[in-house]
């Protein structure tokens, strides 16, 4: 299958080179290097290397990436170093300020704020990533389906428009309130709520990526390499997996990055309205919500989780911005 596949992608590269773009092989065909001739091309400029080079020149994005990696390390490796149980109630040490035993102080039950920030971050980021994965999966599926199969285009786009017309935040509030009890009974309180929040956010935020992917697929379908692949009788599923999907990867990745930010904000907003995770299961939004009652006396308990949310979202937004610049071949050539 590799042999007839090669000529299919060749015209694209030629086309791109002619258009004055960075002539990089499409991600569609990872090893386009002909197996027989030209042994001297060892250092092929892969697409991802180009993307990375362009990404590095975006200063904000690089700084954001560094901070984001640091945040990830903080919430994942942090608990291994700072070994206080975030749910351990030490009532004698309650409401303590900054000290050596509790660097960020404790809350009204004497739970260590630093440990709670780490544990909360794990949940918040896990929610962000999982909800984004669901939304992107749904969005790409529906986008590719409606872009590739003309018969499905009408109904699927009507469906997308319907979802876009739904009032999302009220609906999310509704779903979370109505289904938290039965789900937490079946799956346990923490995992049930996690499942509910993640699927609710995922199911209500796929529409933008579906539209973007559909547009890209519609444009892609008119290209020569698709015609060539079709002419040798490539079946639809292989066509989508090998030729279409790799070529729409860059808009999907940008949408995915920005989706993480939205999902984290939505989760913390739900937690802030008291409709998120249960109290003994900290997330950044929940920590903020719990601290609001005592914000006059202990403002740091509000500020730290809020800063973590904002910092994470800011980093993710900057990374998305950098990715968009890096993946856009019109800009990458410069």
């Amino acid at each position, binding site marked *: 299958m590799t042999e007839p596949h090669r000529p299919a992608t060749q015209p694209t590269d030629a086309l791109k080179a002619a258009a004055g773009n960075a002539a990089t092989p499409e991600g569609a065909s990872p090893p386009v290097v002909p197996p027989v001739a030209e042994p001297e091309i060892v250092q092929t400029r892969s697409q991802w290397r180009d993307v990375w080079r362009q990404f590095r020149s975006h200063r904000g994005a690089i700084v954001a990436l560094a901070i984001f990696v640091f945040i990830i390390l903080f919430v994942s490796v942090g608990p291994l170093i700072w070994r206080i149980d975030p749910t351990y109630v030490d009532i004698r040490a309650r409401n303590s300020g900054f000290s050596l035993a509790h660097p960020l102080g404790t809350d009204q039950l004497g739970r260590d704020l630093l440990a709670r920030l780490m544990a909360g971050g794990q949940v918040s980021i896990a929610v962000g990533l999982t909800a984004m994965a669901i939304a992107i999966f749904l969005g790409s599926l529906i986008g590719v389906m409606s872009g590739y199969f003309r018969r499905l285009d009408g109904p699927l786009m009507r469906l997308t428009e319907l979802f876009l017309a739904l009032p999302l935040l*009220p609906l999310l*509030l509704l779903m979370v*309130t109505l289904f938290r009890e039965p789900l937490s009974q079946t799956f346990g309180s923490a995992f049930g709520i996690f499942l509910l929040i993640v699927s609710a956010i995922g199911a209500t935020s796929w529409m933008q990526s579906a539209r973007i992917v559909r547009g890209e697929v519609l444009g892609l379908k008119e290209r020569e390499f698709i015609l060539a692949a079709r002419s040798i009788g490539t079946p639809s599923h292989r066509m989508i997996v090998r030729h279409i999907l790799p070529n729409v990867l860059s808009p999907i990745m940008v949408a995915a990055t920005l989706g993480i930010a939205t999902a984290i904000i939505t989760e913390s*907003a739900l937690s802030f309205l008291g409709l998120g995770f249960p109290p003994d299961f900290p997330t950044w939004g929940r920590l*903020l919500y719990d601290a609001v009652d005592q*914000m006059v006396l202990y*403002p740091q308990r509000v500020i730290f989780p*809020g800063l973590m949310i*904002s910092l994470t979202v800011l980093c993710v937004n900057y990374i998305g911005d950098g990715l968009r610049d890096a993946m856009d071949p019109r800009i990458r050539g410069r």
Partner: protein
Amino acid sequence: MLNFTIRRLLLAIPTLLFISLVIFLLLEASPGDPLGDVPLTVPPEVRERMRAALGLGEPWPVRYVLWLKQFFWVEPLYWFDQVFGTAHAADMQRIISFQSRSPVFDVIAQRVPQTLTVVGMSYVVGILIAIPIGIMSAYKQYSWFDQIGTFISMIGFSMPTFFTGVVLIIIFAVKLQWFPSVYDTTHEVTDWNSFLVQARQMVMPVTVLALYNAAQISRFMRSSMLDNLGQDYVRTARAKGLTERVVVLKHVLRNSLIPVVTVIALGLPAVFGGAIITEQVFKVNGLGQLLITAIHGSDIPMVLTLTFIFAILIVVFTLIADILYGVLDPRIRYD
């Protein structure tokens, strides 16, 4: 254009019906019971009668159609009666809230002014800040002004409104004591002094929402200006010897505002939704707060009606945005 509008309006009807059905079924599938707070000592037959009195005895398709009739027929008729003093809807049942036992629309009408003053004001302020910033950052692309503007607007839409709100409360209400932290909705504006009090209590919620909106709109404004500044007609205008002021503020600005206006129209319903959180932070008892209390109290008619009103707002403003786009930009043809 007229054809397009009519077609879109006709298409909006099934959309809205479908959305109302989705919300209705979601509420129907919920395990929450409006009679959950009724004590267990109440005998089952009385409980059944209470259930019937709330209209819960019927199967759901009947109740759905009844609600549709109440929403689209009884309520408009009732307003008609109010205006013209007739009595067409005298013996008809309006949508009644489970919690307050008063008509849902009366409660909503009490809450709308609070939401509108805060949300509407913040949107206007946000637009007024965003447009000059967008123009400046596009005109002086990559200057320090543009860099700072980009950074601030990035921060603006990365900080969730519940965090900015709380921080503003800590700084300005607790530490400096400049503004009240709780929005007093019973306050009435009668003279200059009471107007000042009203203005002071509006400052913080409006700032929070305006910051968030301005961050997004200024980004749109900047990219739209950048698109237009590179066009041929700008070079022509400059070549004619027009002053830079006229070129930018007349030729470029007008063309750049076209997409921005539609974005503003599209964002308006989302602002109502987003205001739910801001209202919660500043304890404004507007529509968002009403929705949250209704959800907590399993007040099905209230939740259904409110959510549906949000959906109508979205559909209507999407339509307005599309029509505006066609009216403002003669190159756009909907055929």
